[in-house]
């Protein structure tokens, strides 16, 4: 393709997709039949559709792992980055063009393991990103090793005698580190998940949505029946998401009852992109003129004299 062919192109008028199918990407997912990630993909597509977001206004950024293949299955701008690095890449993209709706997708190994450091810092920055973690408590793409959310004593290929480590808690971590929208969904309840994702995208600030997305191939401990028997919606219990202490208590529950829903939301804290002086009343950085003005050049040179 050359510049010439692009220049003769016809102009399409902006319009809102008429069907959720318009969010389907160029290729069909290669996930195993029954994988929880299908439910997450569908919920994300539906959330974008119901919010009226056009594909070109979306940037989906992922890392590496089964679930990180998601951007290719969406009709939206996408970046399939390195293992664990979706958050810094997305942060850079959002700051360079704050008009984009930037959504990160990935798995528990990607986000809580190799990328764990970035999660803590992205949360404290409260940048306006939505981060959906398809949490299956296992490394699936590498054919079944423990993940940061695998239970104690879990037997996998890397822990054939059982794991000696306890799982981390992504929800309390996110709340403690400053995330302002913290939720958990279940891919077996797509309607509920769609609402949580919509809430996350609408929220101004950093939103973490941890999703139970069972791996039907490599994690037989945490399968659909395991979650179906246990998940209880916070909304049904009248939880107040502005109460961070109760939110943490509910997030710690891991027994016969495991909560899903919106644990915590705060609208008090400003976002990084909202605070950043160079973005105030300004077009996105990517649209600003390059280089120095004559006045700026003069001032800089004078300072060196």
């Amino acid at each position, binding site marked *: 393709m050359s510049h010439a062919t692009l220049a003769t192109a*016809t102009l399409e008028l902006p319009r809102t997709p008429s069907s959720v199918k318009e969010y389907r990407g160029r290729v069909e997912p290669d996930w195993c039949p029954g994988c929880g990630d299908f439910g997450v993909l569908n919920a994300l597509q539906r959330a974008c559709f119901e919010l009226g977001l056009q594909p070109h206004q979306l*940037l989906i950024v992922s890392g590496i792992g089964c679930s990180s293949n998601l951007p290719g299955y969406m009709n939206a701008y996408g970046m399939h980055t390195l293992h664990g690095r979706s958050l810094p890449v997305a*942060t850079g993209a959002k700051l360079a063009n704050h008009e984009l709706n930037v959504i990160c997708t990935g798995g528990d190994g990607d986000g809580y393991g190799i990328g764990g450091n*970035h999660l803590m810092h992205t949360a404290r920055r409260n940048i306006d990103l939505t981060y959906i973690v398809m949490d299956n408590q296992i490394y699936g793409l590498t054919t079944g090793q423990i993940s940061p959310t695998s239970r104690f004593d879990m037997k996998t290929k890397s822990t054939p005698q059982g794991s000696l480590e306890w799982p981390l808690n992504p929800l309390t971590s996110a709340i403690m580190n400053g995330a302002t929208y913290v939720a958990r969904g279940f891919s077996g309840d797509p309607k509920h998940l769609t609402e949580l994702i919509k809430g996350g995208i609408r929220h101004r600030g950093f939103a973490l949505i941890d999703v139970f997305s069972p791996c039907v191939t490599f994690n037989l401990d945490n399968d659909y029946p395991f979650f179906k028997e246990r998940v209880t919606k916070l909304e049904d219990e009248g939880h107040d998401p502005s109460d961070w202490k109760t939110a943490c208590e509910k997030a710690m529950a891991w027994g016969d009852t495991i909560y899903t829903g919106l644990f915590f939301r705060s609208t008090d804290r400003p976002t990084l992109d909202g605070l950043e002086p160079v973005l105030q009343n300004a077009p996105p950085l990517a*649209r600003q003129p390059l280089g120095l003005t004559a006045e700026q050049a003069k001032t800089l040179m004078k300072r060196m004299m």
Partner: protein
Amino acid sequence: MAKKELDLTIAIGGAAGQGIATPGNVLARIFARGGLHLYSYNAHQSIIRGGHILLMLRVGDREVLSHGDRIDLLVCLNQDTMDRHLRLMGEGSRILFNSDDVVPGATRPGAQLCPMPVKTLSGNSKNKVIQNTLSLGATMSLLGLDFAVLEEALGQLLAKKGEDVVRENVTVARAGYDHASAHFEPFPTPLPQGKKPLAVWAGNDALALGGAAAGVKFYAAYPMSPASGVLHWMAQNGRSLGIMVRQVEDEIGVANMTIGAAHAGVRAMCATSGGGFALMTEAIGSAAMMEIPAVFINVMRAGPSTGVPTKTEQGDLRQVLGASQGDFERFIVAPKNALDAFDTVPELFNLVDRAQCPGIILSDLLISEGTFSVDPDAVDLHPSIDRGALLLDPSPNGDYHRYADTESGISPRVAPGAEGFVHVVATDEHDEAGVLISDEFTNPLIRRQMVEKRARKFETIAADVPAPELEGPKNADVTLVGFGSTYGVVKEAALRLAEEGVSANQLAIKWIVPFHVDAVTKALAGAKRIVVVENNYTGQFAQYLRGETGITAHAHIRKYDGEPFTPHHIVEGVREILARETAVFVPTQEVMV
């Protein structure tokens, strides 16, 4: 330098925390404002308080190429400085010291001791850095400069601290000036003033300013010596220039954030030193695979590992050449000096934007933390900006392929947000549309096509990079070859060798990748004796030269003690090599810092 030219070096020595930087800055400004050229090197240690610091300022009436071989005026702020350096002070030199605290040792013939009774002169001031101000006054007198010049400079520098502080300092400086005028013999030739004023910058300022001039809108960093100066400049100036500046949790985050911003359409840059660069390497490969242009600066310090954090080395050449897994295209450039570093940034941005790939700048502590004069007219703050095939506000044509396989290999690039150009970029191999071939089916034909496309676009753009040229006399006895920051010191050494009757020329390499194999081979074809000069032990550049061209150097001059070369190290090396066929000459560092 020829003897009649002005060539004077002032060294201020003391411990960390004694406030050496301030008198250093004042003198640098005074010299440059008076039109004198300046090259300063601050030998310091990774220590918060104490240790030994020696700030060397060399001034001349034409371009100064290195921090030189001798000290003419030594300002001792403590006993340690006196003990370390007095033995090196030769005929015609002056040694200024606080005679209340510092006891001089035995001087060499012709060296003049200049004691200052600090308590008496300062009226028993309790101010711990008052001796610095006294020394400044005395230095002005020794250099034959008017006191008014210092008074003006102190007024400007201390204006923020209030009139009282200015008055106290001017009074004390005056006392130092008058004491020196009454008791010490000034240097025979007063420093000339009143020439066209020059500007002063550090190499890190030059890199940052180069970024601002090139249109950088996003700068990210994790603090790491000796690269932090770029971050500090950006943090100081970013808001007024509309540049987003972020301090990130680690260099992995830095590099990935830079790439994210670059993909969204801005010019984005980051800087670090070798350890941080090691963390960035995976991301650099991802920029190559996703075809995102961005600039990564590695300011080298002595390694491996934490190494010697405040000392210089050219030890990361192999690291940058091997940075990131796989086989891919990227530019690597090693600027020769601060002005070249400034010019390199916009030049590299144009190249990476056109070739849609990463670019690496290899600076080092010597360039980045040194302070230099520069002719303001030589600094082009409005360089040309060429963003290549980045389409802003494109019209949709319904079938956009991000990685379209064109004749040049360059695919029109559209940043996210444009309607009708939706696409996915991936670190996995992909086809022209950006669809992963590893996911669907690994297709050897597409893999080959994409590898060749990326290589072709790089070759297309790399052809525009200027080749190195021999500097100095033809048919020289010795051809000195080096890369990056050794340029100035090698040039000075070659001039000095000429005075001794040894003709030497230089082939200075700036572009590591693309490496100009033909031009370098041709330039070295007739060389009588090739000597590679580099700041490392294993001869990384000599090996690279041999690997690329098949040319084996006749001899080597290497230094790996943390300190940069000064001219006589190279002059002595060449003498030794010519006299004894020495294969590797390693000079001894005399100034113990």
